[in-house]
């Protein structure tokens, strides 16, 4: 009832029914696209509005924001949300969507997290992300494999 289907380049895409300001803004740009499943996992439109270069710059920006927020007593909820967002960003550059559903679920699960993350764990993740950013042009489908195995909270 709240979803409407659109045909874009032979691919059926269901646009978000969300009413938040975020999604409303995105609706206007026509880039908020979801697959025609029950999943809310986003799919970048096939007309390639967001190119690889922009995605890489976005990864740099997200990584910097993550390091900017790093501090003693960083809440677990915030830390893991950043980690998941960076992992999703890396997978998007690699064109991998098989982890999207998992990331979405984990992201929702972070809402129930309490406590804080020690700085050494934050540094461990930051160093791994820094290495990926330094080699951003070589990101592939296997880049997040080892990181996914560490994704436990």
């Amino acid at each position: 009832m709240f979803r409407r289907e659109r045909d874009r380049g032979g691919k059926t895409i269901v646009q978000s029914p969300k009413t938040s300001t975020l999604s409303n803004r995105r609706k206007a740009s026509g880039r908020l696209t979801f697959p025609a499943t029950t999943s809310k996992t986003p799919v970048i439109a096939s007309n390639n509005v967001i190119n690889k270069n922009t995605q890489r710059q976005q990864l740099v920006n997200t990584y910097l924001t993550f390091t900017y927020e790093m501090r003693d007593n960083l809440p677990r909820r915030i830390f893991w949300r950043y980690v998941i967002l960076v992992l999703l960003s890396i997978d998007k550059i690699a064109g991998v969507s098989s982890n999207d559903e998992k990331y979405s679920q984990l992201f929702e699960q972070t809402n129930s997290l309490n406590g804080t993350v020690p700085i050494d764990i934050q540094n461990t993740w930051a160093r791994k992300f820094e290495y990926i950013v330094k080699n951003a042009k070589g990101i592939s489908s296997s880049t997040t494999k080892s990181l996914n195995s560490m994704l436990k909270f």
Partner: protein
Amino acid sequence: MSCSDKPIFVIIKETPAGYSFDNDVVYSSPFAKHVLSQPADMTHPSLVVTSSWGLNKSITQMATGNAGFSILKKADNRSNFIRNYDNRRKFVGLIDNGSRGYKLARTAPLSGNAPSVMELTNLLKSISNSGKNIKVRGSPLEYKRLLDYFQFLLVSKIKASDLFLTRPNNVHVMDDINNPSKDVTLEEVYLSLFEQESSNRTMYNSAYFVTMDRVAALAAVVRQIPTIYQTVKPQNYYDVPTGNVNRITKFLQSKLKTARNAFEIPNRNTPMNNHPNRTQELITPGGRPIITKGPLFKWFLDTRNIQEKGNREVGTSFHKFSADKKALILFYWVFAYPSGTHTTNLPFIEAFLSILDTFHDFTGSRATTTFKNIIGTENTRNNLKRIDPAQLNLNDFNTKKAHKTLVKLLGTDIYRKSRKAYNTPLKTIISEANKRRLNADDKVGRMLYFITSMLGSDSGSLVQACENLSQEILLHLADNDPIYERPKTFVFGEGRNKLCDKLDREGACLVIDAISGSIPQCLAKHSVYHNVGVLDPATRSILSWSEVDGNEGCVDGAKEKERQRKMRLKRRQEQKRLLKEKAAKERIKKAKATRERTIREEAAAAAASKAAKAAAEAKAKVGREARVAAREAAEKRERNNNTLNNRPVKKVKSTPTPVTASRPPRPPRSMRQQGLNTTPGSASARPQTRPITESASARPQTRAASAARSKRNAPASAGTRSASRRTPSTTR
């Protein structure tokens, strides 16, 4: 800046593999080659400059911010450590680093800055007064220059290479991630990163250098660095076209020709009287050649006083011209200097502007109040005026004597550097214009000292005139057409302007060196201030100033304290205003309630009054009827012809009980007995209504019974008396 502030920009380099955060900026000055780098292991803006002077014992490293703090902390107890500080929290130190030269470090709360003019002046004074044998090669003066120029070097670097300036955070992502509500999804956060308008993820690879420093702006323009120059009064911004050395030279020529007492620039070769192989290139209003071209010196500036030499008169008495004229001549000489086989004369112009800017910094009150000898005495200045550029000898500086004047401090640097090699372009330009039998480094050294001595021969007016002329040049290049004019009165939310549109269109940011007044609103989001926050390691968390080593218990400055005090005052006033508003609203509400209650009570009272009136009327009617009935009954008895009983009957005068308006009379007993003695509302409204004792006349049934009783037991008046006795207690 506040203790809780965090720096705002980082440098990112695009590499063939991805993006890196450790980037160096190289600056080749007339004296040394410097590499500015951002140490990756520092947690706050730190500037580390590694210098190559080509000298044995020199300042090889300078560190600021957190890096400066670390170095100074380690060096605290070492010998040959010179330290200057205004207080215990802020100091500059010079540390002997053994065979690797000296380290210059600076630390202060709330700062990643390099030493200020005053701090460097203090350090110079300490070195000068120190009894220690510290042979510092490489003047701290050079570092001031280096840091002044760092901004435009950064712009140049950004413009010409793969460097980007970017913010270290995206406030929208931070909001989304930190949002405590559970309705923000991963998809929404991710997709918000690609919204151009609301995302501040821009990586700028284009920038403009912004300054109100006239000499620095001119130095940037001639180096082909995109420059926005700001005038102080009015506060207008000019977009100055870059790299216009030819246009500048033509402007200077036209000024020389059109000035009062105009100079002459001959159109064709005009040989000198006694030297047919030398031509006059600039002739004073008095007809004396002040710039000449010849086989020995291809661009000779004659500053000598007019004097007899053999059988001829030489010199131009350059130092007797007004400061404005001297500045004009000097600039023309510099900008028109022949480049020889080098592609451009730019290295020579850069060297001149670098020395000029050093005089600007170190001859102002900031330096002279601390280091009183720095501009020298009238006597030393007069000695400098007598210097013959053709007869200069730098060997005077081959001494262990500690110099105190700016000219000699620079002279020491110039001499030492001339022993070890200047940069090649400068050597090529100068040695091709000077054909004397000297080595190229010596020629450069002499030239630089000649410029230094000229600027130092004046107590400040020549430097001031040079700065004014620099502004004239900048405005001329910008066609006197500001790209942004500050409104004359404060306008809240003054909106867009051409400069903002230009930055948006080009995706460029501003690297601000120094400006007068606050930055226009729409420019703020594009701006980087000084070097604070630019060289920021992105590989570690970025702490607020209060969290940085050495800044424990960070104390805000007086301005910040004043700002915070005003904020507190404003908050309190706002709270008071809100409380007042709340109280006023409560009062209004209460008054309204009171009004409504009064209206309700008045209505109830009116209704009660009406009911009382009606009851009184009813009672009066009943009373009247009873009395009529009694009269009729009495009259009947009087008309009885029974003689035995025909005695006059004593008439009992009934005393009607007065009834007050507030108390309705009781309904007849019959009604009361049936439980109808209450009218709706009256019972509750008047619960304490006392029973009204009725008069005998008002009670016909009782009266009949009483009459019967009186006939049996007592005189009829007994009951009446009894009633009359009760009456006062029932009336009010």
